[in-house]
């Protein structure tokens, strides 16, 4: 079978095309937001907020409410809570994040175990279910990702300034605390909409890895966002095709591709660095 056929064959299936679109969008959104997360030095937060969404999801399920809504409320609440507690308590952000992370997830597990039945749909939130995405899910995803990217495009220089140099930004009159909260909300929203694609366990990789890889390649923040987004899309497409060809779980394939790419880039750039040194 020639390469063109290999590429075209899966496209005959509607579910695969939808999965491609959804994963690519998620890849872009995560990579763009991830650039700010890496700038903040809070990659841990991606993991924490994604796990924090779990009790919201379970509770929504138990109450018969839309699962995404429950996840979003829990994720956004936790993200903002991280901001508030970090400012108020004087503890370092990573301590706060660690505490909330574990506590929220444990709450989710406790709630989950109280449901007497087996709940496959909830399970899919742990590892993603992009192959089951419906047309309406995909449309909602497109709308949300576009909205997210528009917000970032509109305010990115404010977000950059406030994240890179909060003191200088505050002195210049920027509402640093509100921008901080906005960024946390954007992170939470991105994570929640990405849960469908890769699930709670792996979404942190989609946020951190493309940005980290981009950081190895370019020196300018503007370029970094672009490169990260490109990596996000490429990994999504490549990962899905790999999952198809090799019969792997799709979410894991995407993340493995991103990780492998990171390691390759790391190797190449460090070798190059040694030669020029």
């Amino acid at each position, binding site marked *: 079978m020639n390469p063109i056929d290999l590429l075209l064959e*899966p496209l005959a*299936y*509607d*579910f695969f095309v939808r999965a491609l679109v959804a994963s690519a969008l998620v890849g872009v959104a995560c990579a763009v937001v991830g650039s700010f997360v890496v700038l903040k030095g809070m990659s841990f937060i991606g993991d924490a907020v994604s796990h924090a969404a779990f009790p919201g999801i379970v509770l929504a399920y138990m109450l018969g409410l839309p699962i995404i809504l429950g996840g979003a409320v829990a994720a956004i609440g936790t993200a903002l809570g991280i901001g508030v507690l970090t400012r108020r308590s004087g503890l370092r952000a990573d301590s706060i994040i660690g505490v909330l992370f574990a506590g929220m997830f444990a709450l989710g597990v406790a709630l989950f175990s109280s449901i007497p*039945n087996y709940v496959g749909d909830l399970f899919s939130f742990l590892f993603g279910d992009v192959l089951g995405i419906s047309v309406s899910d995909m449309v909602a995803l497109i709308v949300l990702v576009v909205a997210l990217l528009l917000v970032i495009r509109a305010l990115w220089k404010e977000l950059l300034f406030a994240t890179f140099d909060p003191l200088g930004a505050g002195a210049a009159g920027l509402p640093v605390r509100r921008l901080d909260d906005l960024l946390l909300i954007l992170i939470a929203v991105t994570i929640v909409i990405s849960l469908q694609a890769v699930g709670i366990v792996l979404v942190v990789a989609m946020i951190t890895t493309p940005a980290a890889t981009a950081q190895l390649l370019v020196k300018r923040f503007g370029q970094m966002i672009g490169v990260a987004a490109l990596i996000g899309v490429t990994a999504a497409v490549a990962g899905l095709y790999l*999952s198809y*060809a090799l019969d792997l779980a*799709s979410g894991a394939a995407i993340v493995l591709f991103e990780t492998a790419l990171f390691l390759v880039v790391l190797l190449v750039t460090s070798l190059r660095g040694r030669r020029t040194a």
Partner: protein
Amino acid sequence: MRLGIKRSVWTAVGAALASLVLVAGCNGSAASPSPSESSEAAADYTVIATTSVFADLAQLALGNNVTIETIVPAGVDVHTFEPSPADAQKLAGADLIVMNGLGLDEWALSLLEAAGKSEEDVLELAEGIDESNAWVYLEGEEHDEEEGEEHSEEEGEEHGHGGTDPHIWLDPKGAAIYVNRIAARVAAELPERAAAIESARDAGLAEIAALDEELRVGFAAIDASTRKIVTFHDAFGYFARAYEIEIVGVAVEAPGQEPSAKEIAALIDAIKAAGVTSVFSEAQFPSKVLDQVAAETGATVLENLYSDALGDAPANSYLGAMRANASAILASFK
């Protein structure tokens, strides 16, 4: 005097804990009446079945001549049911424990000791049910050759089929065998009620026979070329065989985990190739994926089939559930 208060609080807590332990310990070792004793107090004969299906079959077999109870509550999945100490206590009050066997509800056996019962108190409906292989339906038999995979042990699943499908009752002829067995056992233990039991049994068997005929006619009316289904869980193997429904099953590596893109593509291909219009879902297979498969192939996903447990009215009896299944399946054939 802060210390003083603290000490008395701890003492109270300790006393409370100690008394809880004592009470719990006492309950666990309550003696239960043996079957022979209770035949004297005939009105109290209690049959406890593992699931609602077997409880209802016991009802068909025994009528109102005994008390019948269930362990697994309505709406709870038998496969992932985890019995609690309260369930053991419940069993302690049973004169007869009815279970299926063949891996469906092995957890009942593990409760026997805690309930103060022995294997003699248990009627295993599927035990030795067939020495001639008429009732052996192996999993993985009808699956596509290229997949050829046996179901692997599913995570958290207590099923452990080990090769033989235990859902014998989903063929009314199998249910009839179960009814006969239950009636025979109880009649033997309650000879003074044997006559009443036998007439209840006969009525039950008649209803089952009527059901069987009804379904046979209904399915025969469907053209053989459209009488096909896709199923993952082999619960309906016997059912399909009874009414000559072809199973075009596609093996999924590990049901309950996320199916790969290739597995889904293969499933779609199989459905289209075979012209199947009915897909049986199961709790462990992500229903979202199945919905998309159905949308892409035009097939109907049947989500609410009753296999291991009964549901709400009218499916709150064996006969009702079977009829509900049948009408849903018939409607999905296009």
